[in-house]
């Protein structure tokens, strides 16, 4: 891979000069906070005695729910989700009180002295228990098409099972952190590591009971989020703001890794129960599936995730008759939340399980079954179960390219031959597709605005609420500005990450769209000015509507080599009293235009694994990925994002395993017990290719890449089957840890 020369931002990151929230100088010397955690997964709180803690030298305040002046509720959807427990605790580790002190050590000592009287109650743990107890949040969701009540047997074959799918910790490397400074007039300035500053602002204002205009939130950059710093960010920010409000001093809240594990929601665990009917060619005729999602005890983003799962249960496959139902379970865990794939991967896992079993039952190669079920133009097989056309889906192209570049067919033969010679280790090979809808902003963030100002020297400044996470959205914005106004990245300053400037939301696409709108307005305003300047230079303008804005100048399309410098155009415009600053606006409704998704990202991946029959260990020997990312702004970066998301998906399906005790305490609450993949777990050979770029939108590559890691799961299934000991449709647990793989091969106790 030929890397392009690094920029300053990259150099600063690599050498540690780049500043994250907790690296800022003002954060030193602030008051610090220690939380008091519930030791029960569910209990009534009879009393909280803070006197002994408050008497510890250096303690400034001991905060409980009673100190919250506004609404003690963080839930972005309907329902209650208190910051500090009030009356009852609903998950193990839930914060009951917060001790604010001059130093962290004193705060921790004092936190141990807060005495809370609990009345334990039996908790609801796990989806299955919730189903048994009918413990749910909100109504059932349903999605139907065709005739789901047809007799499945009439299609030919019927399969069905229940499948438990584990959740996943986000495990952003930077734990949650925020600090808050009280202003002179009752306002609060917050610096937080957060994905959505507008959401933090609204949440904090609600907690403190002050107008949103009194709360300013900024964020220099985020050390990873993956959905974990949406609602998750509100906990440190909320506690810091409350402490600052009550004590009148700047306060910093830093989560340690264990806090991050115990306090914040994760990717929801799920349980899917399905029945699928297929014909002798392997085509799925009917799918009836119920998905139960572990929502945790309060409602965070589970309803959106569930909706997204139901919209992705088709994966890349056309299914004429479907009935999909979903429920969010109420359990005694932290409220589960949004993630990289937003639930699409959970859905794809179920779809691939179905297809794999059909292949095994018909005893045909499973990739043929996959391909046969793809969306396609013929016989009305191009419309999803929610009525969206898949016309521009480039799945066939990605699939063909993948089979070719991974030498899939040759390797299939080679792997099968090798397996014939090896008794105790088997290789597995699988290729899976992915189709993920993009551009479907969640309900609470449906609009954005951004301002583009042209400066007299022809450079420009963009102000919007986007936060720097990986820089991908910056690139989109820079590309739009370059397209529209011909201003290069070097001449551009993009200010983001402060709610002060413009009400912020985390949906990058909306921001980019707003920038685009502003750029179009500016082009419109400058057109006549540029026309006059070109005329003044004796250049005939072919088409006033088709001026060429490029390379820092404006030129006629016929004579691109003779531009007027943009700086001159801007100065002339100012002299004519034309506003060279424009505010653009965009909304989700506009982007979607009545569709469920703006469009679809898709791709295909082939993975090869080696399974050790003595131990159940899996090594990923090779992975090939081909993806359609729409318009490519920075191909190397897209490749990197794909590898990163693929590895997260791989971790979810192999070594990452959340384990709770029977009392609902998370036992894997640290980097040494919750195991995210390291460099050695990445595929030994890892090739990624993008389909050729085309106009229009860039498509976020992460969600599809995350789903494509299911190729590893399917390759494990292939290898396990090669041992010849399992029946078609055998249960492969998710995640397929070494132990799970071992016991798929050997009966327990054998």
């Amino acid at each position, binding site marked *: 891979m030929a*890397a392009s*020369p*690094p920029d300053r931002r990259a*150099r600063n*990151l*690599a*050498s*540690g000069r*780049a500043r*994250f929230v*907790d*690296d800022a100088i003002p954060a*030193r010397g602030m008051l610090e906070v220690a939380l008091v955690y519930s030791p029960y997964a569910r209990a009534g709180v009879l009393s909280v005695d803070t006197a002994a803690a408050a008497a510890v030298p250096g303690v400034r305040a001991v905060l409980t729910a009673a100190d919250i002046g506004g609404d003690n509720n963080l839930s972005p959807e309907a329902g209650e989700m208190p910051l500090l427990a009030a009356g009852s605790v609903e998950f193990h580790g839930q914060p009951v009180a917060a001790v604010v002190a001059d130093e962290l050590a004193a705060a921790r000592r004092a936190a141990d002295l807060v005495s809370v009287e609990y009345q334990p109650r039996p908790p609801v743990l796990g989806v299955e228990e919730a189903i048994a107890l009918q413990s749910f949040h909100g109504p059932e969701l349903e999605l139907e098409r065709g005739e789901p009540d047809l007799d499945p047997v009439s299609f030919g074959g019927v399969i069905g099972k229940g499948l438990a799918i584990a959740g996943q910790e986000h*495990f*952003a*490397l*930077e734990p949650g952190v925020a600090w808050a400074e009280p202003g002179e007039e009752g306002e609060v300035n917050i610096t937080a590591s957060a994905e959505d500053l507008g959401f933090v602002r609204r949440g904090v204002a609600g907690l403190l009971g002050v107008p949103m205009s009194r709360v300013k939130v900024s964020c220099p*950059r985020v050390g990873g*989020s993956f959905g974990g710093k949406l609602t998750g960010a509100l906990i440190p920010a909320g506690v810091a703001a409350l402490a600052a409000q009550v004590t009148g001093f700047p306060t910093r809240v830093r989560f*340690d*890794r264990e806090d991050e594990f115990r306090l914040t929601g994760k990717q929801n665990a799920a349980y899917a129960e399905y029945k699928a009917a297929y014909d002798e060619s392997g085509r799925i005729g009917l799918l009836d599936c119920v998905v139960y999602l572990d929502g945790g005890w309060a409602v965070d983003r589970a309803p959106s995730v569930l909706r997204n799962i139901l919209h992705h249960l088709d994966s890349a496959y056309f299914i004429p008759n479907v009935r999909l139902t979903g429920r969010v379970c109420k359990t005694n865990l932290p409220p589960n939340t949004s993630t990289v794939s937003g639930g699409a991967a959970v859905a794809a896992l179920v779809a691939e399980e179905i297809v794999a079993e059909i292949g095994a039952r018909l005893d045909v190669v499973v990739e043929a079954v996959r391909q046969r079920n793809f969306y396609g133009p013929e016989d009305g097989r191009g419309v999803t179960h929610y009525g969206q056309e898949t016309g521009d889906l480039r799945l066939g192209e990605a699939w063909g390219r993948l089979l070719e570049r991974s030498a899939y067919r040759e390797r299939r033969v080679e792997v099968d031959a*090798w397996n014939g*010679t090896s008794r*105790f*280790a088997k290789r597995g090979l699988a290729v899976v597709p992915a189709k993920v809808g993009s551009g479907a902003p969640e309900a609470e963030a449906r609009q954005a605005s951004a301002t583009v100002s042209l400066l007299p020297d022809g450079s420009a400044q963009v102000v919007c609420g986007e936060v720097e996470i*990986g820089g991908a959205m910056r690139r989109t914005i820079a590309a739009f500005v370059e397209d529209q106004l011909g201003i290069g990245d070097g001449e551009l300053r993009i200010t983001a990450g402060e709610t002060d400037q413009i009400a912020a939301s985390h949906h990058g696409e909306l921001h980019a769209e707003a920038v685009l709108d502003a750029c179009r307005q500016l082009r419109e305003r400058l057109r006549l000015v540029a026309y006059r300047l070109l005329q003044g230079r004796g250049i005939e303008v072919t088409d006033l509507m088709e001026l060429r804005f490029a390379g820092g100048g404006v030129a006629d399309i016929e004579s691109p080599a003779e531009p007027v410098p943009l700086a001159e155009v801007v100065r002339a415009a100012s002299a004519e009293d034309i506003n060279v600053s424009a505010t653009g606006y965009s909304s989700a409704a506009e982007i979607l235009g009545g569709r469920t998704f703006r469009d679809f990202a898709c791709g295909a991946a082939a993975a090869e694994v*080696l399974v*050790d029959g*003595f131990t*159940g*260990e899996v090594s990923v*020997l090779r992975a090939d990925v081909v993806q359609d990312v729409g318009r490519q702004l*920075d191909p*190397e970066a897209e490749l*990197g*994002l794909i*590898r*990163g998301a*693929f*590895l997260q998906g791989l971790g979810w399906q192999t*070594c990452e395993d959340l384990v709770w005790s029977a009392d609902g305490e998370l*036992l*894997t609450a*640290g*980097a*040494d*017990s919750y195991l*995210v993949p*390291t*460099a*050695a*777990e*990445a595929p*030994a050979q890892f090739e990624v290719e993008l389909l050729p770029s085309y106009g229009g939108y860039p498509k976020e590559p992460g969600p599809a890449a995350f789903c494509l890691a299911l190729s590893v799961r399917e390759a494990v299934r292939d290898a396990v089957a090669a041992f010849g000991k399992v029946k078609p449709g055998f249960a492969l647990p998710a995640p397929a*840890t*070494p*132990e799970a793989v*071992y016991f798929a091969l050997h009966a*327990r*106790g054998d």
Partner: protein
Amino acid sequence: MQGDFEFLINGTPHRAGGVSSATSLLGYLRDNLLVAAKDACGAGGCGACSVLLVDVDGRGEPAMRAVNACMLTLPMVAGRSIWTAEALGTGGQLHPVQEALASCSRFGCGYCLPGVSVALAEAYEGRRELSLGDVVGQSVGNLCRCTGYQPFRDALVSALRDRAGEGGEQRGLAGHLPPAAEGVSPLAYRDRDGVSFYRPETVVEALRLCQAHPEARLLAGGTSRCWGDDPGGAGAEAATMISLEAIVELAEIRRYGDAWRVGAGVTLARFADRLGDELPMVGEMARRFGSPQIRNRATLGGNLSSAPHHSDLVPVLLALDAGVCVEGLDGVRSLRLDELFTGFRQTALAEGEIITAITIPDLPQVGEGADVAHRMCGFFKVSKRGSNDRAIANAAFVVELDGAGVVVRARLCCGGVAAYGARAYEAEEKLVGEPWGRGAVQRVAVELKGLFPASSDQRATAGYRNALVAGLWQKFFTQNRDPGQPAYADVGLRDLLARPAVAADP
């Protein structure tokens, strides 16, 4: 007692006066606005806090070692020299590995990168030839959630290539190393809370201190905290701490007659550097033991005295028939290693005794004229995550055959399963005198499965652990079915990783 001490950070002297003995180096750095090292787990598990410590390599030459700053307390670095990611560059340039990392860092959050640059810099500065597997292994102590790790591999390879090219020798940190190895200086420090931190120079002094402070916590590399359930690591509160790091004798690796004598203070990294080639089981074990950062601090003596049941070191040393030298004020005694462990995290060390050395006798001659015609050795480890994770079960096997293919000696050693790593004497007995073949192996497998009382935890069930003991044994047999003939096909993964990272002719 002194009330302060000095150390170097990025070449600048720092003096810590009164600071709490529990202050971590990471906390100190960050409070002093050296914020490249991040606190992302505080327990040695993620590498985000990595810094370079000037130390020695396997040959005793000065070397830069990557260590986790969250696992070091400030008194542990008294008199020592630390380099942080901010200062790895020289002459206004970034360090070559940072430059290489920067060119592929446009899509991640970047939070892990300073720590990664430190880990990669260690490999760059180590000036050894690296295989592709070494390159991958160098960053298994650094978690990253964004990049998929390929950029780290590419960055190190490209920096190494650059190093091999013209002028490459000048780049990097070699200029920051002292000309000869400097020992760790003694220390007697009392902090503002009255906690004492001693770093004596001799074993006798250490023993006297132990006698005077029976409640004292002994400290070697200070890494055990990273494994979660042992409070003996950095930052734990105790009124007195005694570090064994300044005792020269404990850091030596020597030949004594027909044996190696390895000081208890030798780190896993130095142990493997020195003996990994001669004793392949040691090399293999060290590759699977924690991360580079952990191996750079964890010591043999520390690992044996804290006696974690999942220790990877223990089965290997048992299989090598190692002994331990134990010293107390009353004298010196030698134990066989399997006499050391008495229960879960319990040892036969009496109060006031410390382990000073591990002895590893040379294995008997193999071949013509000797009574051993073939020797087969193997180390195996199964963990939930293949790298940088503690063992669910591990095993080291040594089986010796006579010219007729009959087993003359066997040592079958397993860890991770029962309360401590142990030899399977009953199974060994079943094997000796039998011809090496499926029948005997199968009988031993059945024996092994029931031999160790296993327990369940969040990593694995007891049933899996017990099954693994037999499974690993069968795997060993499959690999050595025909003694002397490597039989186990591994589809080139091993070959791929063994390839040199920088091809001779790029």
